[in-house]
């Protein structure tokens, strides 16, 4: 072990064994609770994030089963209108803001740094902070629900129903503030992902060698960055209307009810692609691995992602087709909405071509991809249907739309996600999930899903509006509703089995090797699960499928320091090494900052002064966070 002239210890001076030991010392979190609270390891935080998001999925699923119980019969009296309204609002808000978006970003937190071959995400403390803020937002929402203050105005909280005059109590404020929490955390992650991908890629991983999942996360992150400010502004102005009497949405004083809808959907539509695009990346990854060949049309797929991202900002009015906007303008949004079928179709066609040319292996992750294709194409096509203005006047706000968005959300996002969990479970936990179980999970969910949601199309056309807590016996809907509710049990059983399998496998599944599926991307070039420093030596990349071109050896770079947490900065386009850079160490300050922020935000539901007084502890914790502690990572 020799130190270089400047006194730094470099990996060039160490044998593999010594290097791993030294890196482990530098990169590990302290053991025990303190370590758990202060860690900034993207893998620990990512895993935590994924697990939390799945807990919210289970909770949201339980809510949906309550709705199905209430709707199984006409004029049922299990759940009254007040509770039902809270339940569907909670279900929608929880699924969108606490499950679907966070889970996708969580997967990125875990996998993007591994896939681009770096040692930690950019801004690791911000990453830790974002998790705590997310958790606080989730707890706020659920605690409020438990004490009967759950929001009851729908997941898009239309004014004036959610405004000061009609949304009495604190219910709508809870909703609006939960938005603030989750958007802050989502924005933070988006920034981390963009910078990680732009600046921390393995040498040689030029943009045209970026794995498709990483591409999808880059586009998603830009969508987050451009779309989420709209909802932040919307929810803030809603709170201001409610708390200090501004008139943004009050038509009597020059405000406008539709302004809310414009702002919400300017965010809300990109939001659905924020959920969908990462899933697309997962599908591409799984398709490549289980057909044993690269995805056909790499460039086309990337272009499709980008095109979807750009088009996503030109569609929001299709949620407002019956709000009374000028018809000519609406026709434009019909055209733009339908146009998105082109990039969506392109991707589907590329995957089909890949499967055609490759040799499919029917393992569970791939089964979920097949399920995705079957279901998502239906959902996409119903999307095209509702994009037509006249068509939509009949099905808007009915169960037809409920069917559409569950087909795209569950089929288009949850199916790929479950596939991705089966696929990446070895990397997440070091153990493999059960293949026989997996087939049952897939079968139950696939069958249960279609039996549950397909009939909703018919209900919608038969005139059943959404968001009704009950319906009258003379309406011809009771048979189908009972059928749907019974089918939902099959669906729930599938999810339950999934949870059981995941928990069981995490504890006692078969131990996984580094690359159990023979996949091509860099996360498989290190142990399962990866050590705290991810890669003992950073990989060097000269093709799109680094692990397929030279299966037996990994080309690596040497010369990084091991005394401090060090990683490599490379250039944006070509990933040429530019500098070594330190990555911050563990810190409790992100947690403290999150606590301070939580106090300020929750307090501000009750008093505007909270913004003034509450910002003091926030500022203090931020200074504590950034103030140098004299550790090697802080200096250079």
């Amino acid at each position, binding site marked *: 072990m020799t130190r270089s002239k400047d006194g730094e210890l470099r990996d060039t001076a160490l044998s593999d064994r010594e290097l791993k030991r030294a890196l482990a010392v530098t990169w590990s979190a302290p053991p025990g609770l303190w370590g758990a609270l202060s860690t900034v390891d993207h893998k620990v935080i990512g895993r935590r994030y994924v697990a939390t998001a799945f807990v919210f999925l289970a909770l949201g699923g339980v809510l949906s089963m309550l709705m199905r119980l209430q709707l199984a019969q006409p004029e049922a009296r299990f759940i009254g209108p007040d509770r039902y309204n809270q339940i569907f609002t909670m279900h929608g808000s929880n699924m969108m803001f606490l499950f679907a978006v966070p889970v996708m970003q969580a997967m990125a937190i875990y996998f993007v740094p591994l896939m681009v071959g770096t040692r930690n995400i950019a*801004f690791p403390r911000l990453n830790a902070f974002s998790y705590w803020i997310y958790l606080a937002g989730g707890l706020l929402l659920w605690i409020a629900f438990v004490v009967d203050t759950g929001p009851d105005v729908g997941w898009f909280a239309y004014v004036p129903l959610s405004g000061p005059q009609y949304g009495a109590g604190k219910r709508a404020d809870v909703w609006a503030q939960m938005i603030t929490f989750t958007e802050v955390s989502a924005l933070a992650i988006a920034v981390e992902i*963009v910078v990680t991908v732009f600046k921390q890629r393995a040498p040689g991983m030029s943009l045209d060698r970026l794995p498709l999942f990483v591409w999808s996360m880059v586009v998603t992150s830009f969508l987050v960055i451009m779309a989420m400010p709209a909802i932040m502004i919307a929810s803030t102005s809603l709170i201001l209307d409610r708390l200090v009497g501004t008139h943004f949405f009050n038509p009597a004083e020059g405000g*406008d009810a539709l302004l809310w809808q414009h702002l919400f959907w300017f965010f809300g539509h990109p939001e659905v692609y924020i959920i969908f695009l990462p899933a697309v990346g997962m599908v591409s990854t799984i398709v490549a691995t289980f057909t044993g060949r690269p995805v056909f049309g790499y460039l086309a797929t990337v272009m499709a992602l980008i095109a979807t991202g750009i088009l996503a900002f030109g569609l929001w009015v299709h949620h407002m087709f019956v709000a009374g906007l000028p018809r000519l303008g609406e026709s434009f949004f019909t055209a733009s909405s339908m146009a998105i079928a082109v990039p969506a179709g392109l991707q589907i066609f590329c995957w089909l071509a890949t499967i055609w040319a490759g040799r499919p292996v029917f393992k569970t992750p791939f089964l979920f991809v097949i399920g995705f294709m079957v279901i998502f194409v239906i959902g996409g096509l119903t999307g095209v249907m509702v994009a037509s203005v006249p068509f939509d006047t009949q099905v808007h706000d009915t169960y037809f739309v409920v069917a559409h968005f569950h087909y795209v959300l569950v089929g288009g996002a949850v199916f790929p996600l479950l596939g991705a969990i089966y696929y990446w479970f070895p990397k997440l936990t070091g153990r493999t999930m059960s293949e026989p179980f997996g087939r049952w999970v897939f079968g139950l969910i696939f069958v249960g899903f279609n039996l549950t949601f397909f009939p909703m199309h018919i209900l919608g056309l038969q005139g059943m509006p959404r968001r009704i807590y009950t319906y009258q016996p003379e309406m011809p809907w009771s048979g189908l509703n009972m059928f749907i509710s019974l089918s939902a049990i099959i669906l729930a059983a599938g999810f339950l089995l999934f949870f059981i399998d995941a928990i069981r496998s995490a504890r006692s599944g078969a131990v996984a090797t580094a690359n159990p599926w023979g996949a091509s991307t860099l996360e498989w070039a290190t142990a399962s699960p990866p050590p705290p420093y991810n890669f003992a030596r950073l990989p060097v990349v000269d093709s799109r499928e680094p692990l397929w071109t030279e299966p037996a050896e990994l080309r690596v770079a040497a010369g990084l320091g091991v005394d401090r947490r060090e990683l490599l*900065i490379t250039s944006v386009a070509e990933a040429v090494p530019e500098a*070594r850079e330190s990555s911050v160490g563990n810190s409790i300050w992100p947690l403290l900052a999150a606590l301070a922020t939580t106090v300020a935000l929750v307090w501000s539901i009750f008093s505007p002064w909270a913004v003034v007084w509450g910002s003091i502890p926030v500022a203090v914790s931020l200074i504590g966070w950034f103030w140098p502690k004299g550790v090697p990572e802080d200096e250079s």
Partner: protein
Amino acid sequence: MKANTVLDLTKLPAHGLGTVSPSWWGTLAFMLIEGTGFALTIVIYLYLMSLAPRWPLGTTPPDLLAGTTLTVLLLASLVPNILVGRWARGQDLRKVRLGLIVMAALGIAPLILRAFEFPAMHIKWDQNAYGSIVWFMLGLHTTHILTDVIETLVLTCLMFSRHGDTPRRFGDVTDNAMYWNFVVATWLPMYACLYWIPRL
């Protein structure tokens, strides 16, 4: 898998500045987020204006004095700001310290002027939607000045502490300077919108 070393990184600097540093990119990304937010408030302003029978709603156009003085002041602050950035890149500790003190003062001054801008609007936030949006825009921009002032003050303390004289701190100073440019740049369209559109 066998590791095969093909690249030597020993010669690389231990820290990058400007576009080489992640924090530069992070600052840029946050500017993009906030810029989107500012742009949206202007859109809301114009939207509400398009609905109103007359504009400004229920009052007269704002007085120009406070806002214009502030604009001039912000523009003037760009000069020392750019200098601080340059000195920081040159790692000139003494000049950076001095520049930061100037910048802290130039950050606090607009806050004082801002206190006169709110009354110059001739309307309260809770009178009508016009009042709501102008207070919102002013408030949003004020929080940006405020956060940058606090950051500048903290950085000033840092530069006077033993942690000051490292390339990393100088990098923080350049990022801070870049952010101040952004705070000034976003004000210009807001100024035009708040003060001149009602006069059209």
